[in-house]
């Protein structure tokens, strides 16, 4: 009896210990008749995009029997995927295709091992020599380039647009058929709305990044980085002038709101703000919730200056190591870049497709855009799209945060625009110099 008890205790302890190890008997049989398995990492959850991703993958797997694609969801958007990717790469099994946000472009290129589409084409599929240049617009391709090298293929694109509440325009005596085009007109319209209705006239999204701010500053001729791309250069008179306009709307006119993005969008949906300057990726969300006459206008410009619209969204680099996997990844990539799949993706999410011909393609978005004015607006901005600035080196995300903090300093009046920009630029440059 006693022996039995002891034996059992020992067995239990051994079993517990054994539970920690083991499980490494996965055999990768090199059977040539077996299909190539590749993994595709994405960031879309069940209620945002994932059903279409699954549909694409299933359709591709059913369309041939040499390649099997496995889609893997990573929670918490791009930072979440980045964290998982760090861990997977350290443990030695990179996924074959990953989805990277444009703001992580430089960080990804500097820290991970990938194979460029050009290398794959050159080595294995010379017949696709012109695929990239004939399929995508040049300015879209540059979104996924670092120093001229094509890191991956652009997949989803979002642009900032103006959403406006036509009912509030009418209540304020403004013409909803002629929304403001320039920033000066935006300021005037916002002021009118505030004076006539007592509600806020304007809100520009305030996430912990500078995406929309970049569009504002660059539209006035400022640049975020110096010409060689190695230093911050946003403390220019042009940038200060543009930022001052936003600051004046918030602090002088009291016609613009200074609040976090989720709250600002809630307030707009509830008819408490006349105009919202935000990402086109929210079209679906806002459309389904707004109870008023919702319309869209293009991102504003400064009088006499060119429209500069930063691109949000993601691109797809290939990380597969072996030849078969790289070829397979390329096949899959071309499959999902077909107009009908990109169209389905856009309709489901509100993202713009990387190919402009999707808009004209009858299999694509033609009919949908005619019905959906907001998406049409986002589409018309496509030729003015520029890269979302990715600060160079390892400190990119920290730099983004420092720059974003200047907004809070300016809009709560604790610093003047010039001082705040100068301080942030100096802080960034000393960080980048390390």
């Amino acid at each position: 009896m006693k022996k039995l008890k002891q034996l059992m205790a020992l067995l239990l302890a051994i079993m517990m210990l054994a539970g920690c190890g083991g499980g490494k008997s996965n055999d990768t049989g090199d059977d040539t008749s077996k299909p190539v398995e590749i993994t595709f990492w994405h960031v879309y959850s069940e209620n945002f995009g994932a059903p279409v991703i699954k549909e694409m993958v299933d359709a591709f797997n059913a369309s041939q029997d040499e390649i099997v694609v496995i889609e893997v969801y990573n929670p918490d958007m791009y930072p979440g995927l980045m964290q998982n990717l760090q861990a997977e790469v350290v443990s030695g099994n990179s996924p074959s295709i990953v989805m990277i946000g444009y703001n992580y472009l430089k960080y990804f290129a500097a820290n991970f091992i990938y194979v460029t589409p050009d290398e794959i084409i050159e080595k294995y599929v010379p017949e696709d020599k012109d695929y990239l240049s004939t399929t995508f617009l040049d300015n879209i391709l540059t979104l996924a380039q670092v120093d001229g090298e094509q890191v991956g293929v652009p997949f989803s694109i979002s642009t900032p647009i103006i959403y406006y509440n036509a009912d509030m325009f009418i209540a304020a005596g403004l013409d909803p058929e002629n929304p403001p085009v320039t920033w000066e007109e935006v300021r005037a319209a916002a002021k009118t709305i505030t004076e006539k209705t007592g509600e806020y006239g304007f809100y520009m999204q305030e996430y912990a990044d500078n995406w929309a701010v970049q569009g504002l500053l660059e539209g006035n001729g400022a640049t975020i980085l110096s010409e060689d791309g190695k230093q911050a250069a946003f403390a220019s008179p042009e940038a200060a002038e543009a930022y001052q306009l936003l600051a004046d709307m918030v602090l002088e006119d009291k016609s613009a709101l200074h609040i976090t993005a989720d709250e600002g969008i809630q307030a707009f949906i509830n008819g408490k703000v006349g105009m919202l300057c935000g990402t086109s990726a929210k079209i679906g969300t806002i459309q389904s919730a707004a109870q008023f006459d919702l319309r869209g206008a293009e991102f504003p410009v400064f009088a006499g200056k060119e429209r500069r619209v930063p691109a949000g969204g993601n691109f797809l680099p290939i990380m597969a190591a072996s030849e078969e996997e790289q070829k397979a990844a390329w096949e899959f990539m071309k499959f999902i870049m077909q107009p009908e799949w990109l169209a389905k993706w856009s309709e489901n999410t509100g993202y713009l497709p990387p190919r402009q011909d999707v808009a004209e393609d009858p299999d694509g978005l033609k009919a949908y855009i005619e019905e959906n004015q907001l998406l049409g607006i986002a589409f018309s901005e496509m030729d003015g799209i520029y890269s979302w600035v990715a600060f160079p080196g390892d400190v990119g995300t920290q730099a983004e945060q420092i720059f974003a903090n200047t907004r809070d300093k300016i809009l709560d009046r604790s610093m003047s625009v010039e001082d705040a920009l100068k301080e942030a630029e100096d802080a960034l440059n000393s960080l980048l110099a390390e």
Partner: protein
Amino acid sequence: MKKKKWSQTGREHFLAWCFVAPATLAFVVFMFWPLVYTLYLSFLKWNMVAINKVMVGLKNYEAVFNDPVTKKLLGNTLLYIVILVLLIFVLPYILAFVNTFVMGKGKGIYKTLLFIPSLISLVVGAIVLQWIFNPLSGPVGAVLGRFGIAMPSWSKTKGLVVLVISLVAVLKSFGYNFLVLLSGMSGVSTELIEAARLEKTPNRKIFGKIVMPLTSSTAIYVLIMSIVQGMQYVFTPIKVLTQGGPDFASSNIIYGVYQEAFGYYNTGKASALSIITMLVFLVLLFLEFKYVEKGVYYEN
């Protein structure tokens, strides 16, 4: 048979080790090893993927001490702790007393009502409070508007943002702490209270002179848990609602460590900051054991 077993101390010890081993192993693997590894990382400059880990000595610690953000983080952390100790320790302590010794009817209902919010997950709680406190479209703003008061946008107001984020943690911890304190109160013998009542002792005195000393062991547990949980529970609402903004005004040490490590990939600086945090808490714990623990009454 039993007697024989007790005499064989060697076997007994062996068996004891067998029983202790799984828990010890779990502790070593999941607590002590990460601690040692964090200490190791705090001397490196490394971004979690680079192949080369650069040894930088104490540079990370220097960076932490010279960074003005660290001061902000410490200040905010302290503010969070003060607010939370008031709202999830002092307040439920008083309410538990009222519920146990002062209230006549409806005790059960109040217990349930006060506990229910603890069942809400932190993320849900954060989003609900964000909706309630939306200065333009939320109900609080609407009520204040009736009285002609414009509600400030709390998410961009220094100080206020800390208070609202604390409320999310309050939602989560209040009910649980209340129940624990309530069970502590039930250990106080009613005879003492009745005797005091006969002497016409006011409730204030009964609480201060009788109930508080007798429940001090429960109270000290809840106090420490409030501080620790308060630090951790505010992490979720910070991440969901403000991401530490405006300009670090709502960030605390825990969120600061997270942001350094997984936002900026400064593993070294993040580790240095967390080691410093741990030292601060070790000192606090030491002080607690040295001074507070002496005055605590343990029934057995």
